[in-house]
């Protein structure tokens, strides 16, 4: 009963003050919207340059195809090779397509001809994708040209398909990841600030002299964080699946279970940060220092297998790693229960460890 009262009080502290209520609901939603639509590694509306030193018909035809695609927003013609440097230096465009003077003559003689794509390596991820698009245009033209000149061509083709997200919509990918990241952030902020705030305001001593046992105080600090964090996850789920049209193919029960285990593991970390910090500012920074590596190394931004091999084992300790697979899987891949449990179980020892370690540490600081 005492415990329930404490939990209720903690929830009220966070939810009753309109400013703190807004700070829990609004920022994650803004992040969801901006992140979902802005963080795209897709390449659209690019500006490119063209240097055409060939006066032949084939070069003209090929370049018409560049004009014909909606991929490029603007195509700027450069007068010669010497203009490529300044053009790319000043970031006027991402790529320059260069056709040399021999191009049409080589083709007429049935010799191989090259189209050079000079790309801005400052943004190598973008320009690699862009040069892929350009290579496709060149290849299409090649196929038509060879067919027209009745040259025997390869009859082997590559058929690209994308499962689970057929049109590679970045919002689908972002929203399913953000559900995990934002519920983690909210839970951490709530738990980490809870003790630090009382300590800074001096009300923590009052709590200590109350008839509550240290364990009850502890549970009273953790449970609201778990509830709010999981609630945040469900809010994101509702917005993502309901409003933003991300398909939800899996089971909601499995989703709820994964979310709960995940948030429990995180709340232990939050409590640890909280008992370490004397002020809210320190708690905030601690949260931040924990968030950065766990988001960047969990496979959210880049696949784990890209990391150096000595760093990869560390990612197994991060609850977010499992939750990302679960969230993406349950949303997009209708993940079967067997795989869901396979990903949930590593989070259970992590949760037990963070909760018990931080409780021990917390109690030692109390006594």
């Amino acid at each position, binding site marked *: 009963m005492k415990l329930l009262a404490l939990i209720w009080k903690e929830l009220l502290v966070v939810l009753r003050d309109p400013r703190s209520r807004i700070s829990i609901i609004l920022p994650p939603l803004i992040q969801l919207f901006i992140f979902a639509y802005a963080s795209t590694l897709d390449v659209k509306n690019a500006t490119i340059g063209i240097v055409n030193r060939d006066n032949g018909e084939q070069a003209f035809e090929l370049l018409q195809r560049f004009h014909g695609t909606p991929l490029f927003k603007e195509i700027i013609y450069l007068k010669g090779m010497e203009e490529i440097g300044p053009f790319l230096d000043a970031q006027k465009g991402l790529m320059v397509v260069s056709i040399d003077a021999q191009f049409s003559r080589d083709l007429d003689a049935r010799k191989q001809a*090259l189209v050079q794509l000079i790309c801005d390596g*400052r943004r190598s991820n973008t320009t690699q994708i862009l040069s892929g698009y350009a290579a496709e245009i060149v290849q299409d033209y090649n196929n038509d040209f060879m067919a027209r000149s009745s040259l025997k061509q390869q009859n082997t083709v590559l058929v690209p398909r994308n499962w689970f997200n057929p049109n590679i919509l970045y919002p689908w990918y972002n929203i399913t990841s953000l559900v995990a990241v934002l519920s983690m952030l909210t839970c951490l902020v709530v738990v980490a600030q809870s003790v630090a705030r009382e300590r800074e305001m001096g009300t923590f001593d009052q709590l200590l002299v109350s008839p509550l046992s240290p364990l009850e105080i502890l549970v009273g600090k953790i449970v609201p964080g778990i509830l709010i964090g999981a609630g945040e996850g469900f809010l994101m789920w509702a917005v993502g699946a309901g409003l933003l049209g991300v398909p939800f193919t899996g089971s909601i029960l499995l989703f709820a279970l994964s979310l709960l285990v995940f948030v429990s593991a995180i709340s232990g970390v939050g409590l640890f940060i909280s008992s370490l910090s004397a002020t809210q500012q320190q708690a905030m920074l601690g949260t931040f220092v924990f968030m950065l590596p766990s988001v960047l190394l969990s496979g959210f931004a880049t696949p784990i297998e*890209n990391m150096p091999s000595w760093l990869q084992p560390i990612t197994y300790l991060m609850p977010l790693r499992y939750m990302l697979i679960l969230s993406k899987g349950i949303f997009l891949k209708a993940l079967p229960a067997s795989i869901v449990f396979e990903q949930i179980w590593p989070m259970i020892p992590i949760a037990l460890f963070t909760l018990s370690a931080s409780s021990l540490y917390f109690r030692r600081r109390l006594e």
Partner: protein
Amino acid sequence: MFNSFQRLNALIKKEGLQIVRDPSSILIAVVLPVLLLFLYGTGVSLDLDHLRIGLVLEDTAPDARSFAESFVNSRYFDVKIARDRRELIPDLERGKIRGMVVVPSYFSEFRRLPDTVAPIQVIADGSEANTANFVQYYAQAAFSNWIQQEVADSELKGLPPLISAEPRFWYNETLESRYFLLSGSLAIIMTLIGTLLTALVVSREWERGTMEALISTPVGKWEIVGGKTIPYFFLGMISMSICLFVSTVIYRLPFRGSILSLFLCSACFLACALGIGLLVSILSKIQIIASQIALIIGFLPAYILSGFLFEIASMPPWIQILTYFMPARYFVQCLQTIFLVGNVWPLFWKNIAIMLFITGLLFFLISRKLAKRLDE
């Protein structure tokens, strides 16, 4: 005039002491930058060299085997071979492999027939959007290589493509994503120090009630602003130097511009970031809210809306308009150019002018808001 200078000096000294005494400021200024550089230099990489994919060989004739070999030997893929795609689907679901390449049972047969097309399916896991793009991109590259070799071996199967595209990447010939990630992450670090730290300093004074004490002293409005920004400006510049050292010496990031241009651009950006932080803390008065707002309008834009990682031109128009108001957008352009290209002054002047304009605007707002608060 002399008094004012003395007061400012005292305020700076007080704020400086607070920075040195509070371990969290040192955490932000020294530990976070190094941690971030480590993460971007070592942990995060967009160079997908070891993409794990599955190769389903329903056909085992020599043609299919030679194709399989070209994939196994490719440095971009770690290949797991199976005979049936059903063996690989659970791995695809749990994200263990990023895609499957399926060679159908009729592949070799169709290749020999004159009027048929022999397809090879490349199935990527679309739930990882960027990785899926790269699976398709590298599969295409490995496939083209294979075709070129195949044709060199025998005239029977048709000619190789006459026209082909040859990409070349300037400034970053070996295509290392850490080059642009590291240079861009400096903007994030500067934002952290400028916006996050200053957002907390004024709201802390309000929350603890020391702001009233400060108001009752003869200190003027601009002296408060100066006292709150100048120490953090120097803290930011120190951390910039640490970053420069770590990224060029330890991570071997090329540095093709000049120190002068780097510090000039950084100073302008830092002024913007400090302005944002100060404005937020004046408006919000409570630390937890100040930190939330600072994260949203300071940190996230530096991360998402600056073009550091995500291409601005690909974003929806309403977000593109937002990016014009983000100082980080201009700073990231300068940084990537200074490190990878060299001194391109026209680009720098344009960006510096915009950043100075934003700074002016911010400090104008600060002076208005601060005046009102003091009168209340």
